[in-house]
């Protein structure tokens, strides 16, 4: 049976996009001489011209952040700091639909996801951390924990506002001021967030936002006036940052790549599991560092799971991100699409078998149909490298030990999934897996109270929960 869906477009009337933006420094928007376009990846329409920060802009932002830190923010009581964060959370909730529409226009993700996941979670992060601001001495990080100073924060394009919230909320709660750089291809919600800071009357310079590309990021990483670097992005860039800050006193947290195993044992509830597999890899077009991109199926249920998975994939709606029925939206950029296409070609060349449902992809914009590869081995590049797109590599196993061995056979260690109805087996597997987040009979769940972050080459430190606060406070015993 096929369901037909009439289009259910979300209106974009709620957002006003300016033709040109400056940087947000010292509480004001500051004009900039150089600009680059940001586009809607679903239509290739140019949405606005974004300022490209150079050395002078980053210097000005760091200076404003330092001034705000020494004169205002570090002197303010936690109780008062917290109230600003509560205000920000409330304003984000009030303007949630506006944020959701803007996020979808700039990023290409389905409005259903920006509306139901990204924006509510971002507001929740501010609300959660607001409550920590006057309780830091109870966080188990020493009796008198101190902020680090000015934090330089560099965030990715896959969850633009949510990653901003993950970075800014704990930094401010702990008493730091920030210089944040949103991703080159998704700066708009961060710039709208700057307006929220103004509406909340956040003291000038506590949050500074500079836009730009990788060169702007490098200026932040190497800036001598910054005390802490927080980065979310690729493992490759993470290592460059780790080397760059090694000779300095900067503290660093890194949230990097992943190649998560999603393990299906033969006693798993198959229908729920299929939903979980789809959510694990096709959520946000697979632009998720913790995506369940390696499906490990126990051999005796592999055929059944694959059959049901393909049936389910036939029903995924790929298309206009602004349509409320859309499941999978646009690939965020031309460059990312090229990377996906390249790795998929490698999968073909290495002998894995590719399958996609029939999809009518729009003629404009950047699109990639949900794809699975079967017959994948551990040596294949599509089983080792992060594709960061809607592409699932399927491997099989016979024994639970073999599943764990395969799951852990990666330099990454961000997340993993377990599907089983047997509690003792689930707990056993969750103990064996070398990953920072384990989803058992669920996948891709996030919450401000729940620490997130990776083992091994997936990064340093955690974000969220009590553990995440440590990233923005002076260490208890180590230098």
């Amino acid at each position: 049976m096929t369901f037909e869906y009439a289009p259910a477009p979300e209106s974009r009337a709620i957002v006003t996009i300016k033709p040109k933006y400056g940087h947000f420094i010292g509480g004001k928007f500051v004009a900039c001489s150089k600009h680059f376009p940001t586009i809607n990846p679903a239509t290739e329409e140019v949405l606005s011209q974004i300022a490209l920060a150079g050395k002078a802009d980053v210097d000005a932002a760091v200076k404003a952040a330092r001034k705000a830190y020494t004169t205002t923010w570090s002197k303010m009581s936690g109780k008062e700091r917290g109230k600003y964060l509560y205000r920000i959370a409330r304003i984000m909730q009030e303007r949630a639909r506006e944020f959701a529409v803007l996020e979808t226009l700039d990023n290409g993700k389905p409005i259903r996801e920006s509306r139901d996941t990204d924006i509510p979670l971002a507001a929740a992060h501010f609300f959660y951390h607001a409550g920590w601001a006057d309780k830091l001495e109870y966080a188990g990080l020493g009796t008198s924990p101190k902020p680090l100073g000015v934090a330089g924060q560099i965030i990715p394009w896959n969850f633009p506002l949510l990653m901003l919230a993950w970075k800014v909320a704990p930094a401010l709660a702990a008493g730091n001021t920030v210089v944040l750089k949103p991703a080159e291809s998704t700066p708009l919600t961060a710039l709208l967030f700057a307006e929220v800071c103004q509406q909340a009357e956040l003291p000038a310079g506590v949050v500074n936002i500079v836009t730009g590309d990788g060169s702007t990021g490098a200026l932040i990483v190497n800036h001598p006036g910054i005390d802490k670097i927080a980065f979310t992005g690729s493992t490759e860039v993470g290592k460059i940052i780790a080397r760059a800050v090694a000779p300095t006193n900067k503290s660093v947290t890194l949230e990097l790549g992943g190649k998560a195993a999603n393990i299906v044992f033969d006693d798993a509830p198959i229908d729920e599991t299929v939903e979980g597999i789809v959510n694990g890899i096709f959520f946000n077009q697979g632009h998720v560092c913790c995506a369940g991109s390696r499906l490990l199926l126990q051999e005796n249920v592999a055929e059944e799971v694959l059959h049901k998975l393909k049936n389910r994939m036939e029903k995924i709606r790929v298309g206009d991100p602004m349509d409320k029925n859309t499941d999978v939206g646009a690939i965020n950029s031309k460059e990312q699409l090229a990377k996906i296409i390249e790795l998929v070609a490698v999968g073909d060349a290495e002998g894995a078998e590719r399958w996609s449902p029939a999809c009518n992809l729009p003629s404009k914009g950047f699109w990639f149909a949900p794809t699975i590869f079967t017959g994948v081995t551990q040596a294949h590049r599509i089983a080792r490298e992060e594709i960061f797109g809607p592409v699932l590599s399927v491997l099989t196993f016979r024994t639970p030990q073999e599943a764990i061995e395969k799951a852990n056979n990666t330099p990454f260690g961000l997340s993993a999934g377990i599907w089983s109805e047997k509690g003792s087996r689930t707990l056993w597997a969750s103990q064996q897996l070398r990953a920072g987040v384990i989803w058992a009979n669920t996948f891709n769940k996030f919450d401000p109270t729940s620490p997130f972050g990776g083992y091994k080459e997936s990064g340093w430190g955690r974000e969220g929960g009590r553990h995440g606060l440590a990233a923005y406070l002076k260490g208890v015993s180590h230098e």
Partner: protein
Amino acid sequence: MSNRIDVKKTYKLYINGAFPRSESGRTYEVKNAKGVFVANPCLASRKDLRDAVVAARAAHAGWNKVTAYNRGQILYRIAEMLEGRRGQFVEEIVNVTGVSKVKADKEVTDSIDRLVWYAGWTDKIASLAGSTNPVAGPFYNFTIPESMGVVAAIAPETPSLLGLIDVIAPIITSGNTVVVLASTKAPLSAMTFAEVLATSDLPAGVINILTGKKDEIAPWMASHMDIDALDISGLPAKKHAEIKVAGAENLKRIHSFKSADPGRIIAFMEAKTVWHPIGL
């Protein structure tokens, strides 16, 4: 007085519960504070380090799986064995470093007490460093800290015994295994401590001790791809940057410390968060 010639000890490495010589065949001369020859300990090589890492990796699964209670008892057992041989350690420290007997005695006492202190942490650290997380949805969500795997460490030059224990005890408390480079100038108490370990029911490979030169071994530790983390407390501060740059290749967790603190245990643990739905 008898004219008996005493039987001197050959100081070797401690790898995988055994006492091999350096595969390189190299040794170096250790003299006491008065410049008199004391011993020819091994000058460990890169290959010795790699052998030790293989042993430490192989031992990790078992040591990590041992109950926290059992790990605590083994750490306590190490303290018992050290207490039983305190005289020998005091004599060795006095002989090699030239400190007073009172000072050496205090160092050994502190070493024993430090081991007892960490023994008590094995089954408590998870309560401190873990959490249950009240997520906004029908999920049971908890965070547990667990060991990272293989941690390499550079022990400080002085105090040679207490410094070594300060470095290795917090690492193994949580279930990590360790490869440690002992004090270069005063390596003897570290190697005698290996004899204590060998009689303490500590599984082979959990603690591996090398003697040699920091400048030679530390960079290999930093670049080794099967070492998860590094304690560089024993390296001079001016060397830290170079080691951190090399360690970035596999994003090693690299720390240095100034005091004994539960934070030292937590620094070499990873927080793992597990989600499970709640439902009928």
